[in-house]
């Protein structure tokens, strides 16, 4: 049985929109990062509005994960600035980290700990009040109740994804950074995960930023797409704008046009 797509905020915790956010959620200016002479992110700038859903789209090595890592403060930029929720992410990341969260199928939770133990540890790290209640709430929402006492390493891919989601939702994040959130999931589970994110975004007003290779997912979920190639943002716009601009029917064709330098935006669309 699938868990209901029900996301409720604590009564004493207002939704981000009601916090009177005057800042955009994320502002990136002239960000640059290189590794041993190889430029991974090359002078990119973008702004992400609070409450929006944005995708970083690009092929392998385009710089998506490097960009997300810098937004999280896991990686220090060589140049440029990152402001998240109004704070400088390089200098004041610990003011911001309690307000955001992150999920990636490539960063796992400790295998030997049970699901409940993992959530308890991270709940303490994030300082979640009434932690047992919050874990029970998430277990209900994400259909984890029956597996709370199982070691995280003995779960199926779908179960691991739901547990990772529970960890990412523990602190009611105002910003969720998602690195290929539905990679390696079957279509049913992937669809459910997308629904969960959209439901949370709609109800909480949170900002979502995801890196993905799944074009259908991006078309369904995102207000804005940043197309990346060789460390640069080579195009941007809503999925509709990009489709019109390239005269294509789906984002996959737009992606291939950009990846293979096949076609430029039409002059009509560009004007």
């Amino acid at each position, binding site marked *: 049985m699938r868990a209901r797509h029900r996301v409720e905020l604590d009564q004493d915790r207002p939704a981000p929109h009601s916090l009177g956010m005057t800042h955009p959620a994320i502002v990136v200016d002239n960000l640059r990062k290189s*590794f041993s002479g190889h430029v991974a992110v090359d002078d990119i700038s973008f702004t992400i509005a609070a409450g929006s859903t944005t995708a970083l789209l690009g092929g392998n090595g385009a710089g998506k*994960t*490097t960009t997300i*890592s810098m937004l*999280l*403060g*896991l*990686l*220090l930029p060589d140049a440029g600035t990152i402001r998240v929720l109004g704070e400088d992410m390089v200098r004041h990341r*610990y003011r911001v*980290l*309690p307000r*955001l*969260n*992150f999920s*990636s199928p*490539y*960063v*796992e*939770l*400790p*295998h*030997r*700990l*049970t699901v409940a*133990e993992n959530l*308890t*540890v*991270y709940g*303490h*790290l*994030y*300082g979640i009040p009434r932690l047992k209640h919050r874990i029970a709430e998430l277990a209900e929402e994400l259909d984890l109740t029956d597996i709370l006492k199982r*070691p995280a390493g003995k779960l199926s891919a779908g179960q691991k994804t739901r547990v990772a989601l529970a*960890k990412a939702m523990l602190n009611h994040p105002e910003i969720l950074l998602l690195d290929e959130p539905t990679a390696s999931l079957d279509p049913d589970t992937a669809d459910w995960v997308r629904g969960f994110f959209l439901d949370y975004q709609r109800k909480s007003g949170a900002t979502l930023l995801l890196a993905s290779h799944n074009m259908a997912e991006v078309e369904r979920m995102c207000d804005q797409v940043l197309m990346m190639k060789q460390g640069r943002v080579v195009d941007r716009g809503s999925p509709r704008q990009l489709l019109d601009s390239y005269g294509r029917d789906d984002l996959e064709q737009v992606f291939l046009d950009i990846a293979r330098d096949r076609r430029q935006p039409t002059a009509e669309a560009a004007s």
Partner: protein
Amino acid sequence: MTGALRRIGAVMLRHLYIMRGSWPRVLEMAYWPAINMTLWGFTSQFFTTHSSWVAQTGGILIGAVILWDVMFRGNLGVALSFLEEMWSRNLGHLSVSPLRPHELMLGMLGMSLVRTTIGVLPAALLAIPLYHYSLFDLGLPLLAFWLNLMVSGWAIGLGVSALVLRFGLGAESMAWVMIFALAPLAGIYYPISTLPEWLQPLAWALPPAHVFEGMRQVMQGNGLDWGLLGSAVGLNVFYVGVAGLVFLYVHHVARRRGLLLNVGE
């Protein structure tokens, strides 16, 4: 409870959960110190009848081997806690949580205290019925020796953790290897004067040399040498401070080089 203490507690809780879920792990912690002590206990009994020096100071070898294990386990307690995060690829999650690097470090030190106590205490207790030797007869100086040696172990453990963070899991064997490079200079089983003269200044630059020398003084009935204890404390503060700063610096380097995400088996 402040946020920092809560987060340090969370780091420890994560490792305590692992211990709770695996009694063989807990048993293994106590196993090697007990075996080591038993082996040296019989050796000591043999020497007691064949060496006037050892006969005068019955239990000196047993005391030395137990206290050496304090330092060894203190080192492993830190390094294994960090390696556990690497093995489970958990460092990425921890690094995007509100946990500060120095809090992670303090959590590892707290776990070292727990692991060392679980590991060494049974060996010390076992020596009482087996060899009629109680390390606890040392009295309060025992606490000072124990703490000093554990802090020495922490300094090495933090250094090993920094190496593993910088160079990856290929350096994990350092957790077991590095401490033994210091063993000949620590004067665990013999006075520092036994060493060649040119090596003695190097030995005196290490805190355990002062501790083991102090331990022998107490066991020979000469009382606690405050000079030796003070030197050990001063050197330990210096080394653990440097090791902590090195760990924090390497953590910063890891953020610059992108090492925090790409870790694991």
